[in-house]
């Protein structure tokens, strides 16, 4: 799937303080502040679900240690190469 974004961002709304630095820093503008309030009482950052490149800018601009986790799309080749490995592990585990 070529339309799949290269990156993915997970934001923990319980940890985010809504400072907005990640929203301002994101090169492809794929983060927004959520309209709703978090338990903490702020508008936490939110991934729009589109265009993330996995650059990590939001991660390094964010002052909270674990509010943001950035993922990158596993290239198709590597992904297929990784599958047998996982199967082996499962087999070993069942044995």
């Amino acid at each position, binding site marked *: 799937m070529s339309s*799949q974004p290269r*990156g*993915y961002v*997970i934001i*923990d709304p*319980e*940890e985010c*303080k*809504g*400072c*907005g*630095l990640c929203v*301002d*820093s994101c090169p492809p503008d794929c983060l927004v502040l959520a309209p709703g309030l978090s338990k*903490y009482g*702020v508008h936490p950052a939110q991934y729009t679900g589109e265009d993330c490149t*996995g650059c*990590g*800018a939001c*991660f*390094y*601009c*964010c*002052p*909270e*240690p*674990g509010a*943001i*986790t*950035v*993922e*990158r*799309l*596993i290239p198709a080749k590597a*992904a297929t190469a990784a599958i047998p490995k996982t199967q082996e592990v499962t087999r070993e585990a069942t044995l």
Partner: protein
Amino acid sequence: MNGYEVIHEKSPAFYDRYLRKDELQQQTHYCPGCGHGIVHKLIAEALTDLGLQDRTILVSPVGCSVFAYYYFDVGNVQVAHGRAPAAATALKRSRPESIVISYQGDGDLAAIGTAEIVHAANRGENICVFFVNNSVYGMTGGQMAPTSLIGEVTTTSPWGRRASNEGLPLHVCELLAALETPTYIERVALNDMKNIMKAKRAVKKALQIQKDGGGFSLVEILSPCPTIMKMDPVVARNWVGETLVKAFPLGVFRDRRPELPPGPKIPVKTVAEALEVEESAPEIASPRRHHTRDLTLKIAGFGGQGILLMGQLLAEMALREQMEVSWLPSYGPEMRSGSAHCHVSLSHERIGSPLITQPEVLIAMNELSLHKFAASVVSGGLILYNHTELPVGFSAPQARVVCVPASEIADRLGSAKVANVVMLAALLEETECLPAESAISVLETVVKNPRLLELNRQAMKAGRDYVDTEIEVGAVSQPDGYSY
């Protein structure tokens, strides 16, 4: 997510949850948009990358980052304002294998701690200093810092900082770069992604230098303080780039190993040789002797009773038995009649802390001390009380209480001064923690006057005899009315 792999996540150098408060254990206490969190992340990531987490000691300062020990899963020490480089020096010198980080703000490092940072840098201590400069006192509410800019309005410079009155902003990197000894000094900023990446490399490099034994490194990090600046976090970050960076130019101020001139050779001598005394301690054949046992004691009374000396005698005896010892005195400014006590640890293992909150043995040389400390004695412990009987209404059900009228016995011997030795003898007889000959041998070293030495010998004997003969007839009392 499926098909994706994690490339950036919370560093394992942080705790999973922060136990500072019952609520919000997943959040730091920093304000939204604060630079400290970013610096924390950069340090944590570098520690993980370099595999240093398990041997790192972080020295937290006074200031907003005072709670850093709640976040970093490393060894943590929190020190007095400005003293972090001094504490870090001690830590590094006593534990050279540890990676020691001094984390400081501008109020901490550039104001009250100026002496400490200059001297630590001048000694070329092999430590890393991360200096977070936001140009203002944050935690205390926005007072002027030595690094505040000209014209910067703070609560203590309400019309703006004036060079004529408050001097110019202190440039710490430039100041320390005037010294020969530092290895690495760089100033970075957190205003944008490019500079944050530079900061990341600088932090890692400083830690790598320490890992390689390379000497002193300091990274100054220009950081936003949105709360005190009364700015939106994004505006505050831009302010760092537009204003703070102009006043404090970024760059590397030092990056080379210092070449130090050779010093005089220090002769290798034993302590006895250096002090020009003869080795007086007897040679001990076996490192561990069966008639010694680990014990923690609190000895308390009033000043002048020989409380502290009794602890020193015990410590000296145990030293001669090749045990580990600690002796921690606590006393007031009075030389006599104030309250005094000391903590003594006798151990066959290394002693973690000289402070003893729950002693196995309490020696109470007066009633006040008995009341004050009896409850702290461990269950199954022993209390030696300097009197013929316990005060009315006193109870310490968890411990065995032995009354030894040491002062009375000492008076009969001719000097109230030896009450402590009588009690020491009673302790040795009762607990068998150390051999009595050992006490005699220490007394022979300490007491030079032959007449007093004889008196001390008599006191030792009297104390032992008392425990051997008198205890049985009811001097040991328990709240249940039984005698042991």
